[in-house]
């Protein structure tokens, strides 16, 4: 069965200039990301800020063309951004944003904005359809008359969801959809997403830095570090028993009242994508790094023991760790 979405070796470079007269420096925001997503499943993408999660999401949606690699959606390559076939394809794939107030036009009532994708794609956009969509995301039909600033944060995110769902998409990219909401509303929005996925069989790419949210939402989890996926697998496996040292540090940062004193605190500075370390990008901060790590970048491949996908020489058993993890 061909997956709904397949991205191969995506690379996205930006050029950055330091100061007025500095030479342009190449920044690899995304450096060789491969991922696949089946219909009706959820892939969670976690990592610290600046690791290329959002850029990956934008390339997967075709909002940005990758510099290298390709994205296949339903077995066909992605048309160039802004072209007519690309615009038609928007009905099949949608995005949910981090900041719902910014993503909504503050001059139009939300009913009009929910009807907009229907008008754009030539679908019937009568009031009953809009009201049905609003009800589906847990808003009242009379709230169609409201302006975005008259709604609460959770209601705005629901309105964004209603707009994204209007054309019955098969893929939804959620870029930090809950990080701007407070905790009680986060749970509501996550439950809503799960419920909608079960009803409609939508595939979700769930981008977040919140590991608990990702564990609750996802069928598979990919951990990103500095533009690369370093570990991928079932959420329970990855988040309970991470194989990659970065994933271990990430998981140990989740507050846990029952655990005592074995938190891994990473040394060194957060990574700078403009000055990428040689070999494995994580080696300067890695407690297990060996000399091989500085020379050769590890590939993402199944671990010999249990087949977990991990990109680490030590975890793969290709090199012995210098010292025990702290």
């Amino acid at each position, binding site marked *: 069965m061909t997956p709904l979405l397949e991205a191969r070796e995506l690379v996205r470079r930006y050029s950055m200039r330091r100061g007025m007269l500095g030479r342009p420096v190449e920044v690899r925001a995304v450096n060789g990301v491969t991922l696949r997503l089946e219909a009706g499943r959820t892939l969670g993408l976690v990592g610290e800020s600046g690791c290329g999660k959002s850029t990956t999401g934008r390339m997967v949606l075709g909002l940005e063309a990758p510099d290298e690699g390709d994205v296949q959606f339903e077995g066909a390559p992605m048309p160039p951004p802004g072209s007519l076939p690309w*615009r038609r394809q928007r009905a099949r794939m949608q995005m949910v944003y981090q900041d719902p107030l910014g993503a909504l*036009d503050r001059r139009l009532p939300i009913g009009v904005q929910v009807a907009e994708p229907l008008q754009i794609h030539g679908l019937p956009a009568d009031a009953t359809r809009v009201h049905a969509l609003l009800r589906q995301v847990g808003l*009242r039909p009379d709230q169609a008359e409201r302006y975005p600033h008259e709604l609460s944060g959770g209601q705005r995110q629901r309105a964004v969801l209603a707009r994204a769902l209007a054309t019955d998409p098969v893929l939804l990219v959620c870029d930090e959809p809950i990080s701007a909401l407070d905790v009680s509303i986060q749970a509501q929005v996550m439950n809503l997403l799960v419920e909608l996925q079960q009803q409609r069989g939508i595939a979700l790419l769930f981008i977040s830095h919140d590991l608990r949210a990702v564990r609750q939402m996802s069928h598979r989890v990919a951990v990103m570090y500095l533009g690369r996926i370093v570990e991928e697998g079932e959420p329970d496996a990855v988040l309970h028993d991470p194989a990659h040292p970065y994933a271990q540090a990430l998981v140990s940062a989740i507050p846990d009242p029952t655990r005592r004193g074995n938190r891994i605190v990473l040394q060194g500075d957060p990574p700078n994508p403009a000055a990428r370390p040689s070999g494995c990008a994580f080696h300067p901060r890695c407690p297990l790094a060996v000399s091989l790590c500085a020379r050769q970048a590890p590939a993402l491949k199944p671990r010999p023991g249990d087949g977990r996908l991990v990109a680490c020489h030590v975890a793969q058993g290709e090199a012995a760790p210098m010292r025990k993890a702290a």
Partner: protein
Amino acid sequence: MSDTTIETATATAPARRRAGMPLAIILALGWIGLVLFVALAADWINPYAFTAMDLRNRLAAPVFMGGSWSHPLGTDELGRDVLSRLIVSIRMSLLIAFGATLISAALGVALGFLAAHFRGLAEQAVMALVDFQAAMPFLILALAVLAFFGNSLALFICLLGLNGWERYARIARGLAISAGAQGYAAAVQQLGASPWRVYGRHVLPNIASTLIVSMTLAFPEIILLESGLSFLGLGVQPPGTSLGNMVGYGREYLTRAPWILLAPSVVIVLTTLAVSMLGDWLRDRLDPTLR
């Protein structure tokens, strides 16, 4: 139950807004309405033809300065009725000011959106044109155009429309770029909307408040520019007349017959004031977040 509450909510909303309309805005609207009526009905309400001379009543004083009712606002040095000339001038000046403001706003916004949408080379070309326009003394451009193409009303309006378009272009480009970065424009584009829809339905209404304020600022400027050009012999030529033209020629009789200059000046001041106030109020009214 819920239906009735929705109905009452929508029914009461407009009443609340109308009640909130301040007296100054009603006066401004009334003045603009009056001026527009005068401009449209000029041919019917004129007491005299605006070129008709009454040589026995030259420099006659207006009613409020002890004159007679045959010339309510007095006459000028050739015995032409000031009221009749004022009525025709209002029509001419409004046509020029509205026409030129709309032309420059449309041109500037279109070029600004082009620059914001295509970026790269198109943007640099537009911005170079903007800098050129801003650096070029407008009088020299106006002199050159009118010298080569002769003077006609349509050309004059277009020429004044060229004045100041660069401000709208800068504003429109900057605001359109920031709209894209803010997310709502990008979000609509991501829904599959065509650029026409993104810019026409979302970006333009969102930046309209700034553009309207900028237009109300440009409106009086254009009336004054027109009077300046007319005075230099580049604008509306005698026997045609405009508000600026009347002020310009009335200047020589400022001490002996101030009413020639006074009437058009009052109209200019009141009209520009009314347009400014209305624009300011409109900006607040058009913004649902300030309601």
